[in-house]
């Protein structure tokens, strides 16, 4: 059982991650009445990019060259930290929820520093927006994870998955409020509408896509895989902590693909029915999420006192 969750975590995080944005795009096309690409489209793009040569930017240095690898490494680390089920053994990187904060920030730092290195205005515009929104995402992330950690009495993610299992924990509204907040974290981290538009190809409106402008070939492949892995990290957290789940490890493992598909469909639905909001309003939206999570903490405190 441990071996299976270990395998699912590694294979799932590293190899199946690109399927998630593929699924979202597929569902979205269907909902909009188009046939759209197959869910396997991200793999085709990765293969195409891996075979292409990349064009370095004139005057760019080591930071530009290392950034894709560092970003991908930070996401590999995040994949190792996030468990797929409650019994999943640690993979040498710990299992701590709050460690994810710094690990995900490392990727953002690397990509933004690379934008400074190539001095590309559009890349910096996207990066500065991304980092500004990240301030509010991080606060919301920490508060929503705090709700789950308080309910489960630990920040060990594998134990949190066990501690939030069953129906008893849903008798108080704290976890539900944490789930509302985490939904906004999912939207912000995956760069989806209403906070970012992954389909945009206009430089002035880009957030996550902006810093990727100067990359091509294998570098871009690494960065696109990192974006997919970010989907994996937050969606697995959402599926195994903030959706109601059973205590049994086998059931958790079996249900994970279904839950991920449902969450992808949910994101597609959200993208279909909402438009991108003004960038300056995104922090307000996330602040609402933070307030919901804070209410979750309060309701947990009220319940136990």
């Amino acid at each position, binding site marked *: 059982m441990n071996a299976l969750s270990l395998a699912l975590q590694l294979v799932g995080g590293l190899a199946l991650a690109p399927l998630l944005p593929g699924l979202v795009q597929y569902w979205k096309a269907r909902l909009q009445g188009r046939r759209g690409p197959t869910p396997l489209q991200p793999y085709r793009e990765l293969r195409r990019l891996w075979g292409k040569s990349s064009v370095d930017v004139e005057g760019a240095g080591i930071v530009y060259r290392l950034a894709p690898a560092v970003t991908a490494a930070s996401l590999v680390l995040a994949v190792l930290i996030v468990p797929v089920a409650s019994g999943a053994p640690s993979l040498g990187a710990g299992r701590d929820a709050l460690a994810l904060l710094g690990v995900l920030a490392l990727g*953002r730092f690397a990509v933004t520093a690379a934008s400074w290195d190539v001095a590309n205005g559009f890349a910096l515009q996207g990066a500065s927006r991304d980092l500004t929104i990240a301030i509010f995402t991080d606060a919301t992330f920490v508060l929503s994870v705090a709700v789950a950690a308080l309910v489960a009495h630990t920040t060990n993610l594998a134990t949190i998955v066990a501690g939030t299992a069953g129906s008893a924990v849903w008798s108080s509204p704290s976890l539900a409020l944490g789930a509302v907040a985490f939904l906004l974290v999912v939207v912000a981290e995956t760069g989806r509408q209403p906070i970012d538009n992954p389909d945009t190809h206009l430089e002035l409106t880009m957030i996550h896509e902006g810093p990727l402008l100067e990359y091509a070939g294998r570098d871009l492949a690494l960065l696109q895989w990192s974006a997919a892995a970010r989907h994996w990290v937050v969606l697995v957290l959402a599926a195994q902590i903030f959706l109601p789940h059973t205590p049994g490890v086998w059931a958790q493992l079996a249900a994970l693909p279904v839950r991920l598909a449902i969450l992808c469909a949910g994101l597609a639905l959200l993208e279909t029915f909402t438009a991108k909001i003004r960038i300056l309003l995104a922090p307000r939206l996330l602040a609402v999420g933070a307030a919901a999570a804070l209410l979750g903490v309060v309701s947990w405190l009220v319940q136990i006192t």
Partner: protein
Amino acid sequence: MTARLQPVAAAAIGVFGFSMLATGTTLGSGFTGAFTPRFGVDGLTAFFLGVLGLVTAPTLAFATRYLEPGRRGRITSVLTGVFVLVLAEVVCARDPLTFLAGWELMTLLPAAIILVSRSDDEARRTVFLYLAITHLAGAFTWVAVLLAAHAGALDSTGAVAQGSGLQIAIALTALVGMGTKAGVMPMHSWLPRAHPIAPAPVSALMSGVMIKVAIYGLVRVLVDWLGPLPLSVGILVLALGALSAVGGVVYALFQHDLKRLLAFHSIENIGIIVLGLGACLVLRSRGDETWAAIALAAALLHTLNHAVFKALLFLGAGAFERATGTVEIDRLGGLLRRLPWTGGAFLVGSLAIAGLPPFNGFASEWVTLQALLHVPAAGHLGDGVAGALALAALAATAALAVLCFVKVTGLVLLGPPRSEAVAAATERPLPMRAAVVSLAGACVVLGVAPGLLLGSLVSLAPWPAALPTAIGLHLPGTGSLPTLGIALVLVAVTGVLVVARGRRAAAPAPTWASGQLVEPSLLWTSAGFTKPLRLVLAGVLRPERTIEVRATRGVVQEVAYSGRVPQHLDEQLLAPAVRVALRGAAHARRLQTGHLGTYVAYLIALVLVLLTAAKVGLIG
């Protein structure tokens, strides 16, 4: 010659401190309320001596080549050495008199050093403001220490009753007095003014060690002497920490002078330390002694980490200043290529202060986050909400620090050089390089193996607490942070991916700017990069901007733009206080007529008043 011996002596202090901490032995006498000079070293003192030595040795080595060889340089060097000794004296003092004397000298010496190295009007005004603020606040330190000595709290813990008015009075006066010296908001106004104008090694000592000695004072009073404090004091400390952390980093973002920006980051990091201290006080008053000790250890670990990376960044700024002639961040650029050693070390310091793995800031911020999460986990409504808010504030602070330091890295180290002088900059001489590189090494070591230290820091709490020693951070009730494993994964995966990527670059091409040529005027500035945040926080920050358009006969000739983010605390709090003080001083000056007769009259009046008081029985 003496200047070369200084770093060796400082290193000896550091080795002595850390070995005392590791063995857990004490030396000399314990604290006493009596007014006879005594010195001693216990665990807490040993730790701060270790911090002092670790930061001071490279800083003094750096100073040997940074300071000009002339008379000014020699005087500065001697005063810097004395300053280090005074800092060591404050943490070793074991009676109120020695402690307070050292405390005052610690304030005066940097002022003297600044005045020796710069004698322009602006520097003199700043030094005056610095002395005025720190001395007015210093009075509160005197009140706190003397009250504690009078109550016998120095001789035996538990001398002051828990929850008594005296205990709260001592705690509050210590918070004001020592908090000002540490640069806690809203008593921080002197810090971003005084730190940038000192010579770089002295800035490094002020930010790296001096404000940490103020933290030592706070820990001594709040944790050691006073015993368990009422909950309200703990929550107040949490609030002050959150305000300093968020306020410090937000204002740092809008600074254009690299050293001033670093000074504001000191306020932020002091805020993070104070958050850990606040969590310790709250958890202690709730009776969770294990986590109270871990929270204290978190604050102390961040004290050490901040000392290391802030000294590194200030020394780096000094090296850049010597190499290019400016610390204006919008006028630097491309220094990583021109000064690979100094620039590389500066990059490590930036990653560390931004709280990113695998460096030391990440480890201590993680422990602080865990400590704050345990405040609501204790299960009480009021302090639980305060703890959750502090947790969110710390997470936002970390993200803001990433935003700020990626900007600093980008503007200073990366991209094309933004002036001729920067393009011609060259690497600094060996002692300066070695100083910053060794501090960067300390950032890596403390980031990879913080657990080796955390165990001894936990046992510094004046109540029994222990944590098994390990390389990583394995705390009860967490998913643990195996820092070594994290560092290995990051390095190994990055290495594999770099090899896999290979060298398949086609001919380089210019960066994409919608088909235009990339000109220096198109380069992004600090103000541009922080604009989204400035707009988002406009309601709080109230940025000011003016745009002047000069047009002749309808044709625009020139557009001038200027913008600034005003310091509201300074303008609403400090400026009125200064006005009132100056008005009071103007009135007081009338007493000084300069006529001998008036002074004789004052004396006679005084004698009469005293005689009357004695007659009535008020005195004597």
